[in-house]
């Protein structure tokens, strides 16, 4: 955008300046407009609908159309012990998943952050768990954990972690197992996100630190970590939100069992809508979850590093 050096007329110059000032003021709104439009268009109306629906009384088996219910769903929600249990499990699931993703993803990103052909190809292949459909992975892992012939089950048995049956038979171990699998599946995205951040650290900063006598760990702590901290946090939140509403993985691997040990909120809501035919109740659940997730995200965002 070339700055027009026009005539020396002051009036024209100040006109240009105020036009430019106006344009400058409008610029941010223009830049964010498309994204905001898209995000809102598909979200605002459904959000409104969800709130409206949550205030209706609609049990498809009793009434084909909803009638006004006020806070009836929220009161029911409040008393629903199995829902709060699922809710508690979902937080464990979400935090566990994100931790596994960080724990696996960051070191792998550090390892793959090199120039060789091997690391470049590895960075592409690492995507595989993330892009393979849940349904296929679910069956694959079930086989690996099979009590009879599963190879991983064999290893777990040797380590004493598993008994005669698959880990999926035990409530606590089943939850841990699928948290691991869920984290493993999301880890590739953490890897490429962190890699992207690592690639923006100029090499000479490392060299300067080395010259200053800093060892590998101090280089990591003082150079690398600050640079990737915000990425870790943001991607952690993103993956956390995705994990929070997980449905496919626990459903395919354990159907929410044994008993309700792996029933997380995603499963509860799916059942509420499609099997129990209580869409209003499910809407109330999603409104409550939305608020809680929002609050949690804001709290986590406070941990961001400001430069």
């Amino acid at each position, binding site marked *: 955008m070339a700055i027009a050096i026009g005539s020396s007329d002051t009036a024209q110059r100040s006109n240009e300046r105020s036009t430019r000032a106006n344009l400058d003021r409008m610029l941010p709104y223009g830049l964010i407009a*498309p994204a*905001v439009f898209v995000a809102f268009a598909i979200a605002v109306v459904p959000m409104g609908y969800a709130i409206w629906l949550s205030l209706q009384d609609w049990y498809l088996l009793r009434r084909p159309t909803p009638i006004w219910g006020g806070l009836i769903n929220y009161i029911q929600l409040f008393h629903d012990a199995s829902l709060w249990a699922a809710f508690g499990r979902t937080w464990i699931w979400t935090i566990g998943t994100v931790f596994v993703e960080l724990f*696996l993803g960051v070191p792998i990103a550090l*390892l793959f952050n090199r120039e060789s052909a*091997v690391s470049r190809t590895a960075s592409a292949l690492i995507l595989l*768990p993330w892009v393979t459909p849940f349904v296929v*992975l679910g069956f694959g892992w079930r086989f690996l954990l099979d009590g009879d*012939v599963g190879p991983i089950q064999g290893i777990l048995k040797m380590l004493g972690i598993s008994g005669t049956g698959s880990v999926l038979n035990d409530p606590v171990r089943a939850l841990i197992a699928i948290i691991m699998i869920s984290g493993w599946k999301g880890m590739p995205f953490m890897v490429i996100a962190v890699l992207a951040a690592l690639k923006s650290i100029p090499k*000479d900063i490392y060299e300067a630190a080395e010259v200053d006598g800093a060892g590998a760990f101090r280089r990591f702590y003082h150079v690398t970590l600050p640079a990737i901290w915000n990425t870790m946090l943001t991607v952690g939140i993103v993956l956390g939100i995705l994990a929070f509403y997980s449905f496919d993985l626990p459903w395919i691997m354990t159907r929410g069992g044994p008993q309700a040990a792996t029933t997380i909120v995603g499963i509860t*809501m799916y059942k509420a809508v499609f099997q129990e035919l209580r869409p209003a109740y499910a809407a109330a659940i999603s409104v409550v979850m939305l608020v809680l997730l929002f609050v949690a995200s804001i709290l986590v965002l406070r941990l961001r590093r400001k430069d």
Partner: protein
Amino acid sequence: MKRLPMLRDVGLDVLTLCILFIVLLPILWVVVASVRPDSDIASGGWIPQRFTIQHYQEIMAFPGFLVALKNSLIVGITVAVITTTMAVPAAYALSRLSFRGRNFVALVILGTQMLPSVAVLVPLVVIIRQIGLSNTLTALIFTHLSLGMPIAVWMLRGYIDGVPRELEEAALIDGCGRIGAMVRVVLPLIRPAIVAVGTFAFVLSWGEFILALALISKADTKTLPLALQGLFDPYSFSWGRVMAGGTIIALPTIILFLVFRKQLVGGLLAGGVKG
């Protein structure tokens, strides 16, 4: 002296391969299973002895599978391109420009991500039916855009935050406008991030099932996850076929990413900043 760094490189390469192998073991099992006959998969032990391409043949012969593949590619690539195109300016604005409501807008954008698909489903379907766009890829593209947009904006904003402002100051002084600065200075530096975000949008769209199921029922507009569901017959289930289906679904993304992997490497600041 030269040998030590080379040894270190080779050693790290080997380590990379080992870690890759361990991490991808379950995937390897899926791919190997897809070329074994069904009876071998469950009871034949780990080392395959018999091979068959029967499962892949069955899938390719499956009516509509190739159409579904094409549809998923169209939707995925369009979503990835549009998402990044819209998200970059928005992320730039949120990162660099100060304006009224900046933080509020950022938070609300993130908030739109926090509604589950199940809650969004019904009103979305109603609206799309009203405008007459049921069973179209257009409706699906638009819906998927909103899946990845908030996350794309947030992530790119984070990366842009990490680019030192001095670089743009220099460009602005030189006579570039804001947009010029964005395009010529910031964009090349965050290229890996753009690739990452584009990949994210693509993968999210590629594997999306619930919304696709609700919006599309005609065979010629089905996407891959829908087509894959057809492989699950309750009465004659074939593990091999499911594994083959999964491999076919995973493969295009990997191929696309392999093609773009050089982009992931770019973006190194040449010449440094300080000083």
